[in-house]
């Protein structure tokens, strides 16, 4: 951990507003994207970010909190919050109609395909275990290195690799078998378009 982050964490534990503002500016947008990808709802993703930082503050105020890997710590809080939310109301965040991620799509047809695909992937992700889901999200969506993921999960790198392997296998299975050939079509179509 670099000295800047160490200093930042020390100041944050003293509830230094400047340090806390820096932390928020650094990580809130990434956390929002992470929540939005998993939840598909901007309002709920905002809630997730607010709750994540609120829990972080309470932990600091209680004299606890991370000694290192602040980013991983914040993502773990967010991930747990999403898992709790999904446990409470599993159907809440999987609505395809509300998915906003297609605004950048150029063509309407591709936009529809991506919307369907995103919904399928999100459904398949929630069939995984929480740890597997987090590994897939952090490695393949957020682009983290495995060491960072290991820090976020509090597991060894070897365990993360193993989780990733099982998660991919399970994800393939869910994407193809459980969704069926008809819904698999957009993937092939998108692949064809990409190539």
């Amino acid at each position, binding site marked *: 951990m670099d000295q800047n982050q160490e200093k930042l964490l020390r100041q944050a534990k003293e*509830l230094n*507003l400047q340090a*806390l*503002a820096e932390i*928020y*500016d650094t990580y*809130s*947008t990434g956390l*929002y*994207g992470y929540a*939005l*990808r998993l939840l598909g709802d*901007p309002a709920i993703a*905002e809630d997730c*970010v*607010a709750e994540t*930082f*609120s829990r972080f*503050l*309470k932990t600091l*105020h209680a004299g606890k909190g991370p000694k290192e890997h602040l980013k991983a710590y914040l993502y773990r809080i967010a991930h747990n919050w999403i898992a709790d939310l999904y446990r409470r109301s599993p159907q809440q965040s999987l609505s395809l109609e509300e998915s*906003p*991620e*297609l*605004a*950048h*799509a150029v063509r309407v047809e591709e936009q529809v395909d*991506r919307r369907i*695909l*995103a919904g*399928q*992937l*999100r459904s398949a992700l929630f069939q995984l275990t929480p740890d597997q889901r987090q590994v897939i999200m952090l490695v*393949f*969506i957020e682009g983290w290195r495995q060491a960072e993921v290991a820090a976020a999960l509090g597991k060894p790198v070897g365990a993360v690799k193993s989780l990733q392997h099982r998660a*991919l*296998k399970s*994800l*393939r*299975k869910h*994407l*193809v*078998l459980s969704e069926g050939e008809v819904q698999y079509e957009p*993937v*092939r179509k*998108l*692949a064809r378009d*990409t*190539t």
Partner: protein
Amino acid sequence: MNQSENLPETQLEICFSSLRAVVPRAPGAIQRGRRDFLAQASALAAPVSKPENQRHTGWIASFVNTLTTKEYSPMYTTIASFILVLALMFGGSGAAVLAAQDSLPNQSLYQVKTFTEDLALRSTFRNEHRIQMELDYAGRRVTEMTRLREMQQAIPESAYRRLEKHLDQALLIAARSGAEEMVRSLNQIRERLQNQNALLSPDLDHDPLMIRIREMIQTRISWAELGLDDPLEFQQQAQVRTQFNQQAQFEHQYGHGPGPDLDPEPGVGGFGPGPQEPESNNPECQAENCDPAAQDHFGPGQEVEEKHQYGPGPENQSEQGSQNPDPGQPAPGGNNPEPSPGSNQDQETGHNGQDSSSNPESSQGSGSNKGNGATP
């Protein structure tokens, strides 16, 4: 090959890419979130002292917070388990004790009731309180026996013996107290017993047991009056009586065997309705020339018996003795509910058969006891 393996990396990557692109966060939302976050941090950072009324009671909120926290430490779990086990153990016992308080001598929970009473007596050390408790328990015994009789049910001998024990213990404790306290205690005993006697249902006056209880109470009233008139004599007799009781208890345990079990069965013996056992049924009196009084060391009419009575005094002797001139014989009449003199019940209680006839004062010449010396 598994169908899932047909999904190539490129297509899987396409799936992931469908999630990567998200709508950028609205700047207003970022500013709002940041402001809320920093406001919360400021509130937490501000040193806040508790209000005046909470400064000394803050531990309550802290304790409640500890109990309601989401995650419990293993220590809390252990303590909670321990408390739960104790609650189950003693909660169950407490319920049994509570339920036993209304039980009657012929019911199974009665043993629990008497056990708790004994426990309470053993844990009471002040004479004044002890006497009070003995008298309270005596009152309970009378109530129990009256209720049983009203329900037309047999009354176990043990209930009667227990009543006798409570009264004697109260007198004995009074006798062992200092002069001033003894007078106060005897006055209290006399008053309580007079009230108890007055409260006995007149409807049951024809009942032998009620007669017997009434006589027992009246006897103890007369003993209390003796103590008030002549404290020294009362104390001497109490001392003799104690020694004799100890001896009787010792002989019961080590000398004399328990003998035949004379615990009356409901409806057969004891105080219950049903046929009375004739004197000749006493197994110890089956021998030739058997004299019930002479057979038993503790029976009425013998020297031993006469020496250990709380006699009301010589003035009563002629009056009461005239009612039954033979102190060695049980009182006449078919209503005598007592076991034969010299039974093991007498040995057990060590009461020397003083109440083992329907009219112990008259049949045993209690008036002569006082004058016959106090040597056991």
